[in-house]
């Protein structure tokens, strides 16, 4: 990582845009394709301005045809391009899941190693904006189940800025999940911020009493909870998974070996959640280091409701995270 040569105030959205611009400038094989990425400026305004800069061939608006334009991204990657396909949200990505699983993730192995698919797919995920049950899913855990792809969840300005280029250098499909509540996140970013590794989880806050393991949209909530716990004298370590597939088990387990207690916070539904995988891995790897069973705080198993108070009650919040952490500290020996 570069040494900071001054910083500039920016947002998650701008960091993503800077990453897109850099990629389009560095490699002419790169192009962005998706619904309303061009004239509209992107449904979350991430690609705003790029059409004017790079033109309609490389900032390519598509019809509402998720299956075809994702599949076309696979074909274009096979044909030597470096497509970045934007799916507006993970909810709509289900329409393209056949292409992602049965083709993008499979062709390299099924062809005996002949055809790799250097495709990057970006999509928004998550709840928190009162857009109700068909626009609030957190299904990145499903994608983390698929062999043949890599799954990333940038939760910081650095990762929003840096993960894309590294993903484009990957010879295989990489999916980026951008939590929709993060686009307006502000902060300072090193002026020379650039590509980051996409292999390792990151300890965002060091602690000794328990490990809070999370990713994406719940990282900032978890850090808030850690602050709250700190003011009560509890030292919580916060681990940001960053890469949901392959999981960096080493970093996770190293933290748990230190704290002996782990709480996983995951905005996905509880049953069959990514949190279950992380918990099971901790048990498999560090069972005898645990002072208490690994705990989970996930989203209630309901379609996300529109009403604000119900939505807030459905998904993890700083208060519920802190509460679950305190309960975990009480449990076990």
């Amino acid at each position, binding site marked *: 990582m570069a040494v900071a040569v001054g910083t500039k105030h920016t947002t998650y959205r701008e960091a993503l845009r800077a990453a897109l611009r850099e990629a389009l400038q560095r490699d002419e094989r790169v192009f962005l394709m998706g*619904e*309303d990425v*061009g*004239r*509209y*400026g992107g*449904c979350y*305004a991430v690609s705003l301005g790029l059409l004017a800069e790079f033109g309609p061939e490389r900032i390519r*608006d598509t*019809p*509402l*045809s*998720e*299956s*075809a334009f994702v599949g076309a991204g696979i074909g274009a990657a096979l044909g030597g391009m470096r497509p970045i396909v934007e799916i507006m949200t993970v*909810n*709509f990505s289900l*329409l393209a899941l056949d292409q992602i699983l049965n083709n993008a993730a499979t062709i390299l192995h099924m062809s005996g190693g002949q055809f790799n698919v250097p495709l990057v797919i970006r999509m928004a995920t998550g709840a928190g*904006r*009162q*857009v*109700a*049950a*068909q*626009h609030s899913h957190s299904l990145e855990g499903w994608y983390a189940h698929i062999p043949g792809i890599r799954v990333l969840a940038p939760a910081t300005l650095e990762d929003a800025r840096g993960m894309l280029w590294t993903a484009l250098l990957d010879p295989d499909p990489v999916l980026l999940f951008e939590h929709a509540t993060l686009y307006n996140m502000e902060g300072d970013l090193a002026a020379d911020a650039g590509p980051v590794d996409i292999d390792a989880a990151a300890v965002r806050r060091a602690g000794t009493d328990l490990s809070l393991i999370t990713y994406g949209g719940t990282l900032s909530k978890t850090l808030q909870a850690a602050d709250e716990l700190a003011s009560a004298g509890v030292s919580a370590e916060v681990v940001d998974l960053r890469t949901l597939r392959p999981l960096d088990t080493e970093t996770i387990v190293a933290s748990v070996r230190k704290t002996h207690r782990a709480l996983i916070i995951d905005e996905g539904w509880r049953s069959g959640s990514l949190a279950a995988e992380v918990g099971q891995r901790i048990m498999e790897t560090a069972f005898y280091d645990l002072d208490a069973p690994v705990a989970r705080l996930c989203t*209630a*198993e*309901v*379609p996300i*409701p*529109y*009403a*604000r*108070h*119900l939505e807030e*009650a*459905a998904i993890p919040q700083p208060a519920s995270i802190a509460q679950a952490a305190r309960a975990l500290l009480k449990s076990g020996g």
Partner: protein
Amino acid sequence: MAQVEPAVAPVEGEHSLDLLRQMLRIRRFEEMCAELYSAGKIRGFLHLYIGEEAVAVGAMRALTPEDAVVATYREHGHALVRGLSAAAIMAEMYGKVQGCSRGRGGSMHLFDRATRFYGGNAIVGGGLPIAVGLALADRMQGRNRVTACFFGEGAVAEGVFHESINLAALWHLPLLLCCENNLYAMGTALERSESETNLAGKAASYRVPSRAVEGMDVLAVEAASKDAAEAIRGGGGPQFLEYRTYRFRPHSMFDAELYRSKEEIQEWKKRDPITTFVAAESAAGRIRPDDLALLEKEIAAEIAGAVAFAEAGSWESVEDLTRFVYSEREG
């Protein structure tokens, strides 16, 4: 003329007044929604139908209470005209438990069992196969009912449109496909979305009788929709109507409208379905000078009542969050 008029006016006038009343109800209701959105009373996504009122108003007149309606996330107008109360819809947008979906759906997911209003679907094209299935159920149970499915022209690009219209045609189902062609899918103009922009022609390629209709003219919409519904009830299988209309407002409250010009919008506003209708019907004497004012008064009261109802409404208890994930069983 002057002598004839009184004789005809009551009936004809009633009809005109009714169309106007419904269009105005939508317009004023949504103007209020926009205000309430700015005021933070309504949240999430809000898609306004303003400019397209003639479509829902004209099309719904072809339906009976037994028929079914499937709509999109831009469905306030359809819900209102179908018979959901402004109060129940407004309460829904407030997120109150008195809302037509208990406050769980919000603007995009209005539902009502009593009027067979099957939502409020926010996946583009997602309502189409459901409408096919509703029509299939009627056919298999020997009920002569029509299912009307509303969707935007953008949905035509989705594979599920292709699959659904083929299934409806293949199985000869009583389905009225109501395509609201407002020329844009968010910021994507039809010509950037379809290689063939004649949508009625596209639909005809499935052997589905299809027609393009002047969607800013409520009478034209009503007539075409009634013809189509009649043909369906006569056993003629599905019908496709392309209503040519225009969205006066941004796609949602987040849209900067970079993809179309102010001039284009102004041009279309000259064809405002309400003002043009008022002008024509007034000229024909079917709408009287004071009718409009009376209507406005009546509607303002209705909407004020709806807002009051929503304001007075209560939040669903958090304990009920998990209710209706599965059906509740007796015992």
